[in-house]
């Protein structure tokens, strides 16, 4: 059950347009890559992170009879924006660019996806914004892609997957974070994997449900990595959005990380205040999915454990099936907090929305 809070005017920080198929991208490749795709039969980059017909991948009322959900601007405008009367929605396109083994191919795909989003989404509904898709395989190439499109103010953040080749705090990724800070964009770390490693630290699971469950521990690890590596010491203006991460796990993780930090801080002396404080200043989490406790009273307790009303930012996770109807804000979140979640917090997270 959701609360009766009206979401009119909210900023939706996580929706997922689908690339309808690889043919839709062809106009946005150079001749070489267009030819390669055709000559080598490069397949569509849908990933096992969201199996096409799995229940979570698209809510029944948002699932088309044919083709991919959320695959064109009209559908997105109606289903994602009009339904919730949101003012702005940020497109995080989960096409499997990060999974590719060749960094050159990945760079070509990233550019194609970004140009496709501009032409097919951003130009068609002024309420839409997007995160820049980058080839995380190579930070220099990633920065080049950021520089190529950052002049378009409708790109408001930079997309990465929570499980890449290395933990995201590692220094090899820092040129990306320098570019993000330079262009006033947060890094949006979304659930998903480049599948370069097993999705759990004990190997590959059997079921999709486990793959999806394992996203949460991956986010724990990633928060540790960003903080311990000192990304926020080096880039003090940077914010990191955890998208489709859930948030109810965060307090317990920060308790544990902060406890160990008190005794191990000499290993990472640039972390000169508690990880909890650093997280409150730099980490933001999208609302959906809410891995909520059984009662609204418990959710209120949990929000108290969060220790901040500035960390959660509104999202529907459209078209993923996280809730039914318009019950996007769970009971247990007060009207005042909901207002911050829907408008103030997103604006403070994405400077380009101000």
């Amino acid at each position: 059950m959701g609360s009766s809070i009206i979401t009119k005017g909210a900023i939706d920080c996580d929706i997922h347009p689908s690339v309808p198929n690889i043919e839709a991208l062809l106009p946005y490749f150079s001749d070489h890559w267009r030819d390669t795709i055709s000559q080598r039969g490069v397949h569509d980059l849908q990933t096992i992170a969201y199996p096409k017909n799995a229940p979570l991948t698209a809510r029944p009322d948002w699932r088309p009879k044919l083709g991919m959900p959320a695959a064109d601007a009209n559908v997105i405008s109606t289903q994602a924006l009009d339904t919730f009367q949101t003012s702005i929605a940020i497109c995080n396109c989960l096409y499997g660019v990060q999974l590719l083994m060749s960094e050159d191919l990945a760079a070509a795909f990233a550019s194609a996806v970004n140009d496709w989003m501009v032409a097919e989404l951003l130009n068609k509904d002024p309420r839409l914004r997007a995160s820049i898709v980058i080839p995380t395989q190579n930070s220099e190439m990633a920065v080049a892609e950021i520089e190529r499109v950052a002049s378009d103010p409708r790109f408001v953040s930079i997309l990465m997957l929570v499980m890449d080749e290395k933990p995201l705090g590692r220094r090899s990724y820092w040129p990306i974070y320098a570019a993000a800070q330079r262009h006033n964009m947060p890094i949006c770390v979304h659930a998903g994997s480049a599948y370069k490693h097993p999705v759990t630290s004990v190997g590959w699971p059997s079921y999709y449900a486990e793959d999806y469950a394992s996203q949460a521990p991956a986010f724990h690890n990633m928060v540790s990595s960003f903080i311990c590596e000192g990304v926020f010491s080096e880039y003090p203006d940077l914010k990191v959005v955890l998208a489709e991460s859930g948030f109810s796990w965060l307090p317990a993780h920060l308790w544990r990380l902060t406890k160990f930090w008190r005794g191990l801080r000499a290993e990472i002396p640039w972390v000169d205040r508690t990880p909890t404080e650093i997280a409150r200043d730099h980490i933001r989490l999208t609302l959906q999915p809410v891995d909520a406790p059984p009662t609204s009273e418990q959710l209120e307790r949990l929000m108290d454990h969060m220790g901040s009303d500035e960390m959660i930012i509104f999202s529907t996770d459209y078209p993923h099936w996280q809730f039914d109807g318009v019950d996007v804000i769970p009971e247990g979140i007060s009207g005042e907090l909901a207002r911050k979640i829907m408008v103030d917090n997103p604006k403070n997270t994405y400077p380009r929305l101000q």
Partner: protein
Amino acid sequence: MTKYVVAAANEILPGQRKLVNVRGRPILIFNLDGDYFGILDRCPHQGASLCKGQLVGLVESDRPGQYNFTRSNEIIRCAWHGWEFDIRTGKSRCEPEKIKATQYNIDTKTGSEVIEEAYEAETFDVAIEDNYVVVHL
């Protein structure tokens, strides 16, 4: 405030420490380059004896990847969870304004001062020409 003579100054040489007991309080006395400092021998976290910890330096950083090592042996690192405390201030390294080891005022007095001012010194034979470590409690 009562003053207790707890050691002859030359018993605790620079770089050394001594655990003393004053009115039931275990107090750890350090000599850093001739200056004496005293802290309660209990970590404020879970109560471990700080005396059993290691003396380490101060590790700070200007930016990730840089390690500035100074003040060798001026920090005591708890034997259990590794919390570090600045011997000069009692302040923890992790959260200096919030987490502190209990500190005591320590100074040194000459034997004649000790005798004239009648400090508590039950266990000492005080010689006029020597110096003594005094705890204010």
